[in-house]
């Protein structure tokens, strides 16, 4: 039994090595510019207030949202998390990731106004592997906090 498992592990390792050698990429990766429009509704928000009390550099906002595409389904198609660390005033540095049905997109950048901001797409997995571009977020409602996420991706 152990011998068989060892054999399978060896084959898998060899196959992985071959893929690395030939520069393999997923067959369903983006092959051109694309735009992804998603609506997000915040479901959880947490602020970590470090001293001094009140909004100050070092405070952190952590929020979690469900992602929807009403044209496809009324149910959530994924979720996203974003963590912003205040650097002074209303400026903050944020990083986040959005889990979508066909892969994960990772974003990051600085934000001044929460109502309208833009982050850089840093990369992703699966379909969005190696993707880059921008994420423009527009707040369309306050309660519940509802944003429109517009990913402009380049392969």
């Amino acid at each position, binding site marked *: 039994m152990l011998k068989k498992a060892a054999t399978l592990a060896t084959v898998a390792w060899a196959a992985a090595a071959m893929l690395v050698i030939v520069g393999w990429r997923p067959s369903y990766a983006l092959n051109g510019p694309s735009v992804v*429009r998603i609506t997000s509704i915040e479901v959880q928000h947490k602020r970590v207030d470090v001293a001094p009390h009140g909004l100050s550099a070092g405070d952190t906002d952590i929020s979690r949202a469900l992602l929807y595409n009403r044209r496809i389904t009324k149910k959530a198609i994924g979720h996203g998390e974003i963590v912003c660390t205040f650097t002074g005033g209303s400026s903050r540095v944020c990083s986040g990731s959005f889990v979508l049905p066909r892969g994960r997109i990772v974003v990051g950048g600085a934000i*001044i*106004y929460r*109502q*309208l*901001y833009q982050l850089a797409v840093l990369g992703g997995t699966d379909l969005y592997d190696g993707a880059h571009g921008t994420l423009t977020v*527009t707040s*369309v409602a306050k309660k519940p906090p509802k944003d429109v996420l*517009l990913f402009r991706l380049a392969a």
Partner: protein
Amino acid sequence: MTNVHQIELDHAVTVSHPRLRALHVDSLKSRVIGASAVLALAVAGVFAVLLVAVADLRHATARETRSKDIVATTLTLQKLVLDLETSGRGFAISGNPRLLEPWRAARVALPGRITKLQRLMAEERDRRASVANLVDLIRSYQNDYSIPLIRIARDNPSAARTFLATAEDQRRTEEIRNAFDTFLSTENALATHDTASARRTASRALAVGVAGLVVCGAFALLFGIYLARSIAQPVREVADGATRLAAGDLGTRLRVAGPKEVSELTAAFNVMASSLGQNQAVLATQNEQLRESDRLKSELVSIVSHELRTPLTTILGFTNVLLSRDVDEQSRSHYLGIIDAQARRLSDLVRDFLDVKRIQEGGLELRRELIDMTALLREQARFLFMETESHRLKLDLRDDRLPVVGDKDRLTQVVANLLSNAVKYSPAGGLVEVYGSGRKGVVRVEVRDEGVGIPDELQPRIFTKFFRGDAPERGIPGSGLGLTLAREIVEAHGGQIGFTSAEDEGSTFWIELPAAETLHGDPHADERR
């Protein structure tokens, strides 16, 4: 002529049934209906082609109109989007609420315009995607950006005035503008194509209409020529024939041809012409007969005048001699005998005239009595030869008695006439033979002479009233009534009369009467009955 009538009758029988008449494909009616149907089909075909052309034209025009409408609607839509953009941006930068008026108006008007554009493009299946993309961009811009931006500008004007806001606005509107440009360029190209297509279709419809009018005109012309040849020309020929007929050319005949009605008309015309010819021939014959009758009557008047005048002259002459001179007894007796004979002749003449008149009026009455023709023949022969001494007589009676039932005076008149004719038409010294015989219930009497005979061409008319042949030229007296009366009398007794004759050889006249059988048994039996 009978054949013609028979043909006409057969023809009438053949086509007399209404259904058969209706099915007669060669009739004028059928031809006119057929020609009209062809013309109607041609007109219908031309109209069908015209309808198709007009429908194409309408379709092309509608397509052109719709294209123009789409362009107009798209331009309006583009203006509304521009209002959204400029007005929203102006408000975001200035915060002046008055600048939002166009933005609000554009928001109100946008749904209706979008719906109209979608409706106009509903039939353009291959272009629905571009419309949907354009509408998505507009709605996304409005809902995802413009409306939130206005709200952000109210809540946090600084956030709405950032470079990001401006750049995002420009980026989105640029996308929409590009989409509009693409859509409009495509639509303009289509509109141009539709306009050109509509013009081509209009030109084609016009050409088809003109060609259709030419074709219809040609068909109408051909139809008119056909009608003229089928109807007007035959009728003209019939009219010409009728004119010739009226002018007296009874030999005019028309060629029986063409459609059924026309051939029937020409055939009827030919029958009428034949009938007219026949009637004219009959009229000519009757006219000739009338002329002949008139001539005979004139001749009769001449004969009567002569026949009356001759004995009257003789009577008057001898009467004058007896009254003015002294004559001896013998001469006196001789003259009185002549006067008596001429008076009898006058009497006979008048009697013949009266008899003819009576026969003509159907008033000849016969007595029925038993007569012995042997005795009658002997008596008449003796009377005749008392008057003439220049002829020889041979009386050959093979039976002692030849009984018949009849009118003795009339039969005597017949026999006397035959004997008188034999003497009159025989030269002096000629032999007159009289035969009488009875056989098989028939009493036959023959009177034969050696006279001038009767030419063949005159024989058929010998019993005609007042007909005397060449007797007047020969100076033979007579009225031309004797043989006519003889035939009437003999036939009234149920008998027959006839003759055989050869010119310059003589004639034999005979009569046959039914024999009275009772005479052999009881001579008076019939009288008692």
